[in-house]
């Protein structure tokens, strides 16, 4: 029997491999179903549906021989969906909302908070309670009014009825349907308290609510919410609150706290454009971000390449040792290196500053002067980044065929000319994409800026949280989260999307340029 034409012939159709694959799939499916079931149980329907769809897609890909090539791509695609596309969509969504401090909860949660609030009218009767519980966990309560010495009893479903108020209460009681409830020891009622306080007992006119262990009182709901008109009414004052951008607001402008998160359209984007506090430093921050990323790439590349060229020379003694030593900065976590450098640069106690002071008589103000703060950041970033550049340059250098240089030697080209005309262009072809990657990384190098000086020194005379060394991403952080100034996730997401577009555009330009470079060579 011939194989279907689309299925390539190979050993992968062996029975053993197939069995392994099926077992793997069965395992994944079982896991996914378990997870989906848990998600549905928590009411997370969209997530559950997405999970099921993805799982079906995985099954299809791994069972249909025609989709053989996609099998190897699918984990990558899945990860991309999960780690790139999903956060991106989520950011776009959050940027359209007012999610942040004061608007953390959902509308449902906020309405529940208001409608479950009760107040005690001044003339309310305060009861002592005795709890009875049935075998299936239903409650029957006896409310004793110590002032008038009367008793009311009933369950959640019926209106409380007066019962005989003389003598001790019996160990068991029956409700109107004949179901039996047995008395719960006073000590044991505490653990039931949270369930009891939620039961709206009623004496016909008033709500009787459990207020504590053995205590209850007549109460009235403080707020009433009408889903039809979307209005919240304060029962004590009669004031009607209407929702305005996620906050219940009275006609006189008084608002109720907390608010909830709602879609507010493009307001966050407009704020970025309109608010002078945000807009005015934007240009200077943008220019510095660009310069910072560009100089970081240039400096690390120049230093890294020089080291690579030197280490590539076979006549250099102890090459292995040098190579190891030079890679050390790469092996130390960047945050630790930055903190060490901060110490070295400290004008009072830093060794590096001391050295400069010893030679030149004065040392630059690394953390106070805007220019030197920027220079300090570039110095550290060069230190952090050159080993990576050196590593990739070393690899790329070794892939350049040696006979080219022999030919150049014969033609009488000097070393410098060979480097300029042969080494550098050939190197750039393979390294240019990595340079772009480094550029994009530094464009968002939040950690370094934050660890060095938290974006400082501050800009004098301007009302902006941005500092002299803040780049776009750290500036976003300061705007959105400040120093304990509360979180504004909506605004932060809007700015993050601006940055995404900027970096995306730059990268696209870069790619176009690289393609031209490749065509030239």
């Amino acid at each position, binding site marked *: 029997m011939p194989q279907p034409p689309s299925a390539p012939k190979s050993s992968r159709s062996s029975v053993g491999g197939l*069995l392994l694959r099926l*077992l793997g799939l069965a395992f994944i499916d*079982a896991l996914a*179903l378990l997870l989906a079931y848990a998600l549905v149980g928590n009411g997370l329907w969209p997530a559950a549906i997405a999970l099921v769809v993805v799982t079906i897609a995985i099954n299809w890909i791994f069972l249909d021989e025609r989709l053989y090539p996609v099998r190897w791509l699918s984990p990558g695609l899945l990860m991309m969906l999960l780690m790139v596309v999903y956060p991106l969509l989520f950011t776009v969504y959050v940027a359209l909302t007012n999610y942040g401090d004061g608007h*953390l909860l959902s509308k449902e949660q906020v309405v529940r908070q208001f409608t479950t609030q009760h107040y005690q009218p001044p003339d309310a009767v305060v009861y002592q309670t005795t709890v009875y519980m049935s075998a299936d966990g239903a409650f029957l309560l006896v409310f004793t009014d110590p002032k008038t010495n009367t008793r009311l009893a009933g369950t959640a479903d019926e209106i409380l009825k007066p019962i005989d108020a003389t003598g001790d209460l019996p160990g068991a009681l029956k409700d109107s349907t004949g179901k039996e409830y047995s008395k719960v020891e006073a000590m044991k009622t505490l653990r039931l308290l949270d369930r009891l306080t939620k039961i709206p007992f009623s004496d016909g006119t008033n709500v009787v609510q459990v207020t504590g262990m053995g205590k209850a009182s007549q109460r009235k709901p403080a707020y009433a919410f009408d889903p039809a008109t979307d209005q919240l009414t304060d029962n004590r004052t009669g004031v009607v609150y209407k929702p305005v951008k996620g906050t219940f607001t009275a006609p006189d402008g008084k608002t109720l706290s*907390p608010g909830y998160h709602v879609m507010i359209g493009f307001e966050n984007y407009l704020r970025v454009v309109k608010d002078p506090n945000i807009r005015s430093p934007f240009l200077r921050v943008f220019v510095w971000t660009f310069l910072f990323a560009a100089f970081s790439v240039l400096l690390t590349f120049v230093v890294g390449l020089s080291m690579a060229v030197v280490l590539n020379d076979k006549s250099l003694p102890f090459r292995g040792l040098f190579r190891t030593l030079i890679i050390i900065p790469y092996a130390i976590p960047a945050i630790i290196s930055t903190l060490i450098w901060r110490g070295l640069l400290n*004008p009072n106690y830093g060794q590096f500053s001391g050295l400069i002071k010893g030679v030149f008589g004065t040392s630059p103000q690394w953390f106070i002067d805007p220019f030197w703060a920027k220079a300090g950041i570039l110095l550290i970033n060069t230190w952090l980044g050159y080993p990576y550049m050196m590593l990739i340059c070393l690899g790329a250098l070794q892939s350049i065929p040696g006979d080219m240089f022999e030919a150049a030697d014969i033609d009488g080209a000097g070393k410098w000319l060979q480097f300029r005309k042969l080494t550098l262009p050939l190197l750039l072809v393979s390294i240019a994409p990595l340079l772009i990657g480094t550029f994009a990384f530094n464009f968002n190098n939040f950690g370094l800026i934050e660890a060095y000086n938290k974006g400082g020194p501050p800009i004098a005379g301007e009302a902006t949280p941005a500092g002299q060394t803040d780049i776009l991403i750290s500036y976003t952080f300061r705007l959105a989260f400040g120093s304990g100034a509360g979180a504004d996730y909506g605004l932060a997401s809007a700015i993050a999307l601006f940055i995404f577009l900027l970096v995306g555009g730059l990268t696209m330009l870069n790619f176009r340029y690289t393609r031209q470079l490749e065509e030239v060579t």
Partner: protein
Amino acid sequence: MPPSSLLSFFKKLTRLLPVAVLATLVAPVFGQAKPDAGKAAAAKEGVLTLWVPKLAVQAVSNAGKDFTAKYGVEVSVQEVSFDSIRDDLKTAAPAGEGPDIIVGAHDWLGELVANGLLEPLDLGDKAAGFDPVSLKAFTYDSKVYGLPYGLEAIALIYNKELVPTPPATWEELKALAKKLQDGGKVDQGYGLHTGPADPYHTYPIFTGFGSYVFKQNPDGTYDPSDLGLDNEGGQEAMRELNSMVKAGLLRQNIGGSDIDSLFVAGKIAMVIDGPWRLPDLRKSGIKYGIAKIPTMKQQPIPFVGAQGFMVSALGKNKEVAKAFLVEFMADDASMKSIYDADPRIPAWLATQKAVTDPDIAAFAASAATGQPMPAIPQMSKVWTDWGKALNLVFQQSEDPAKAIKNAATSIRAQIKP
């Protein structure tokens, strides 16, 4: 059947196999899942969950054991770093994953209450057992939102070998600092956070000259419309800091960790800092003393902070949580064991009176001169601009009065948008 078609048949069959395997794997899950899921949710409802920083875990766990024995409610004490409790609550509680009780600082109230995350607490008769300052700190919108256990305030910490008697006035402190520096005994007579600036530690200098952040109303609440950072006193405080930098009495670029290590090394003779420094100071073996902050134009008013337990509004056991706090934590034994594990100024009066530690007593004396740090949400708008103004003066890049005026203008703009 030829072997190749057998293989094909087998393959077709095995495509159905996963379904079968799956069914057998999943069947028990379905069979059990329903009662299981119900049980898990109920269990969560019956278990009192607390987020507590490391030092208080043991004391709270002990009280929890007594609580379980008496009422049959399981108590789960989870260790969470103090610095992350607030943010974790803000993320976890709305998602239904939060605890019933957290330990936190009173100045979180504004933010947490505005987000609807805290439940008011009725302390009943137990209220009388607390230091009134601590209850005032935990009062927001005339409701109490926390059960305090510790208070803290900064005071003058001095090196006894360099400073035999602590200075009573700011002028004395400066003269002494100059003498010590000129004598080459120390790097700095008095150490203050200058790089980056720290408004919290600098605040006593502001209040000593008659400034304030928000005006305190007679009832102890704060008026966010009256910002006093740039008043006459505030400007004078800024000029004072400026002249101290010029005179070499304040060094630039000194951060918090620099001050800590320089003081312990005997290179700084005096600092204004809080009781959280005690474990480090005791370990170092340095001879230190603690005194009230020296007087400027008037007695400086440091911020007083309070730590305590708060009940989450989105917890599943709110009533149980309240009962646990009021009955079991507001209690001599519990408060004593928290104090033993985490020595702060006790907010529980019985424990406070029994304190024999002179260091804690000295910090308590300083706290008595202070006011609770405002917990209103507007307070969070103050720090950034205020710190920036201080930095500009420490770095000598702007006129002191102008710097604080600019900061105040920016703060006012943020408070009423």
